[in-house]
């Protein structure tokens, strides 16, 4: 059995090894010699393979409004995450496979998975010069428990029974119940560490790779490289401006004209056009999905055959080709994408089978019944198109389904989870455990289908205490099989995230956590300008 005490510590060595293997730009020479060696004169042929400091980058994300915030607790949109990750660090960082790696925490240990001992990295400073101490961490975590703050992770924070300092660099977190997957929770962007006592967020005072020079909600933010950053190989560009252009055409035009170097969320329809102009489009296999949730406590979803028939009516192939133009992966009515390290790949794939669906519906007398409408909205990516395809498939077997399209404005508060059949959109969670606990457990606040299976809840509790990863994987497999077979959540596909960038930007690589390297691109990129201009930039 693996000794949990050393698990994350081993992770440190593992991460160093894997970085050498997959990302030569974080090579050993660099780690040994420090920053200066890489910024010296470099032969032209080496540009692009070797990271270097310097340069200014402009990036445009999708959503931005006056709700933009530098308060980690309230960050809820992609732009907020992208910005937050420039200025703040978490105790833990999630790598491209969503495996937790040490960040501000040097080690996280627990013998019973209920009381966790965190040892902070020493010598880390906030942007204002103050050293990072356990008091900052305790403050940063406990504030999420205040309901008046409006924290995005209030629910997760409430699972932490007590958070207390243990010496200047030690923190102890006691959970309400054991959870071996707890380190992933600390990897959530919202649990970023701020200075003890911070209540105002006009600017950011974090420990992150950039300092905040400008922050204008809904307009732009400018980040400058933190020369005092604790991780010597962790930041390259001198300055980075982040704007948000919600208008799709305008965002693509800004990329094509060279006004910005990077954009998030390339339209699948424009990928070919963008690539033709020598602009790269990165495909990230994220676990984001748009799903139909058929409530199982009210309406037709109370009948298991109806739920099964609806899953069979999803023409996944057609949806993949016509809605996402191929930029998605098949979903199998369970929430972990095929690339996830805990995905159950042995489950039989649900396929489009109108005959079987018709049989099931007819057997239960649904064909002549009037059914509640399918609620969809542009707020849930691709749901309107999915609803129409589903309606069409139903029509072909004599089932009448109405589609009701709701405005994007207010969809999540007014329509989502409020109708017998409605679409939702879920971003990848930090861990398989969080996916199950937040969206599928009987008491989960976001249990969209109101699916209740006590065996599933038992397996969840068991998996949280199972230190052996193989055995935990087996438990997760069973849980996915139960969701696949029983839950009213239909997941036809996982959406591939598309980000566009000019060839001068280097260091970007796909990440399962979301767009632009799990919203954390800023610290990984470097600029590959023409050597002539680059020499003046890299001091």
């Amino acid at each position, binding site marked *: 059995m693996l000794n949990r005490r050393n698990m994350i510590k081993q992770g440190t060595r593992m991460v160093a090894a894997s970085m050498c293997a997959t990302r030569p730009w974080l090579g050993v020479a660099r780690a040994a010699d420090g920053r200066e060696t890489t910024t010296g004169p470099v032969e032209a042929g080496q540009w692009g393979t070797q990271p270097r400091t310097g340069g200014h980058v402009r990036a445009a994300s999708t959503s931005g*409004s*006056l*709700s933009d*915030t530098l308060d980690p607790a*309230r960050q*809820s949109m992609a732009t907020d995450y992208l910005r937050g990750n420039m200025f703040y660090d978490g105790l833990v960082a999630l790598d491209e496979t969503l495996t937790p790696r040490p960040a501000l925490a040097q080690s996280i240990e627990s013998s019973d998975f209920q009381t966790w001992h965190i040892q902070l990295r020493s010598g880390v400073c906030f942007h204002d010069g103050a050293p990072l101490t356990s008091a900052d961490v305790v403050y940063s975590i406990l504030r999420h428990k205040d*309901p*008046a*703050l*409006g*924290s*995005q*992770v*209030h*629910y997760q924070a409430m699972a932490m029974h007590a958070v207390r300092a243990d010496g200047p660099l030690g923190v102890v977190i006691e959970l309400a119940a054991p959870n071996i997957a707890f380190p992933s929770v600390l990897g959530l962007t919202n649990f970023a560490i701020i200075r003890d006592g911070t209540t105002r967020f*006009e600017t950011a005072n974090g420990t992150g790779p950039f300092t905040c020079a*400008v922050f*204008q*909600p*809904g*307009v*732009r933010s400018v980040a400058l490289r933190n020369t005092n950053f604790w991780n010597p190989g962790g930041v390259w560009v001198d300055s980075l401006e982040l*704007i948000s*252009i*919600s*208008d799709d*055409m*305008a965002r693509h*035009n*800004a990329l*094509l*004209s*060279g*006004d*910005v170097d990077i954009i998030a969320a390339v339209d699948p329809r424009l990928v070919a056009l963008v690539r033709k102009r020598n602009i790269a489009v990165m495909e990230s296999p994220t676990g984001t999905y748009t799903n139909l949730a058929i409530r199982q406590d009210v309406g037709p979803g109370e009948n298991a055959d109806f739920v099964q028939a609806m899953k069979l009516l999803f023409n996944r192939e057609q949806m993949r080709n016509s809605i996402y133009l191929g930029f998605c992966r098949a979903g199998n009515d369970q929430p972990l994408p095929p690339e996830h390290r805990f995905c159950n790949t042995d489950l039989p794939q649900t396929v489009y089978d109108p005959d079987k669906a018709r049989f099931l519906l007819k057997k239960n007398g649904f064909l002549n019944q009037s059914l509640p409408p399918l609620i969809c909205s542009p707020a849930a990516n691709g749901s309107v198109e999915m609803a129409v395809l589903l309606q069409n498939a139903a029509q072909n077997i004599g089932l009448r389904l109405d589609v009701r399209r709701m405005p994007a*404005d*207010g969809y*999540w*508060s*007014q329509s*989502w989870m409020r109708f017998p059949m409605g679409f939702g959109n879920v971003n990848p969670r930090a861990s398989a455990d969080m996916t199950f606990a937040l969206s599928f457990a009987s008491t989960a*606040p*976001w249990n969209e289908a109101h699916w209740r299976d006590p065996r599933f809840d038992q397996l969840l509790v068991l998996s949280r205490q199972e230190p052996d990863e193989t055995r935990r994987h087996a438990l997760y497999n069973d849980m996915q099989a139960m969701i696949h077979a029983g839950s009213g959540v239909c997941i036809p596909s996982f959406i591939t995230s598309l980000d566009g960038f000019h060839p001068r930007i280097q260091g970007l690589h796909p990440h399962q956590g979301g767009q632009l390297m799990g919203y954390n691109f800023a610290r990984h990129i470097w600029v590959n300008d023409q050597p002539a201009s680059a020499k003046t930039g890299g001091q």
Partner: protein
Amino acid sequence: MTMTAKLGMAIARRLGASCVSLIFVVVAVFFITSALPGDVAQSLLGQAATSDSVAALRHSLRLDQPVILRFASWAGGLLRGDFGVSLVSHQSVMSMVHERLIHSLLLAGITTLFAVPMALALGTLSAIFRNTIFDRAVSLLTLCVVSVPEFLVATLAVLVFAVQLHLLPALASISDIHSIGSFLAAFSMPVATLGCVIVGQMARMTRAVMVNVLSSSWVEMAVLKGVSPTAIILRHVLPNVIAPLFNVMALSLSYLLGGVVIVESVFHYPGIASLMVDSVASRDIPLVQTCALIFCAAYLLLTTLADIVALFSTQERTRA
């Protein structure tokens, strides 16, 4: 009662009516925004909302008070010159609006400087040379630009001048303006796009008003008496068309403040129209109120100004 006193009375009446409209708009906007589904607490929490967390946040933002009470406290603040605090960002509304308003006024001002003389010249020339090739060409052109939606004009302009020709930046980034050159580059496309819409409209209206006056019998008499065309236009026609022209301009220009949200979003220009759209989306009522108040005040100011000009011009004529 003397003429001046009468004029003063008329102006006072107009200003009074404007104030009543303003109060009506403020009350109406508050209650309409309050009637929108969802509130700022739900909007802030988004998909992470649970009923407990929404209730707690609502309480801390004092959204659990009755609508009337919230309106009274906001209106009370307004009377003391306090526009309130944004529910989303906790900053004072005035500080949030201030910069955006300056940006909007700048864009509107530059557009006006270009659009008004151009529209007046085009309209007047078409009226003078009516039914000629020139008139028909102007008429066709203005009809075209008025009927094409501005997002199309803006997107096409970006496609041609920024993406294909690389002559102008695709975004009007106000923070990047450091020289006259970058100023012109940043503003040329937004101003041209807005210009298309209002020049077309104003030129057509100017022509209509001018033609109306030019075809009157007293202009014909002046022509018969041998007055030069320039003198007819400047001394006889212009004073008679000033009032309707000001009305046309007031309507077109009031659009430049609140109606330019598409241009703001296409060019990523941080103006006040997009601020208002944002604030409605996040249900930030104090901010919605202040923006509505500004738009309404600007509209009333312009139309009242046009009315006062009309009053003066009729008085001049009666005196003459």
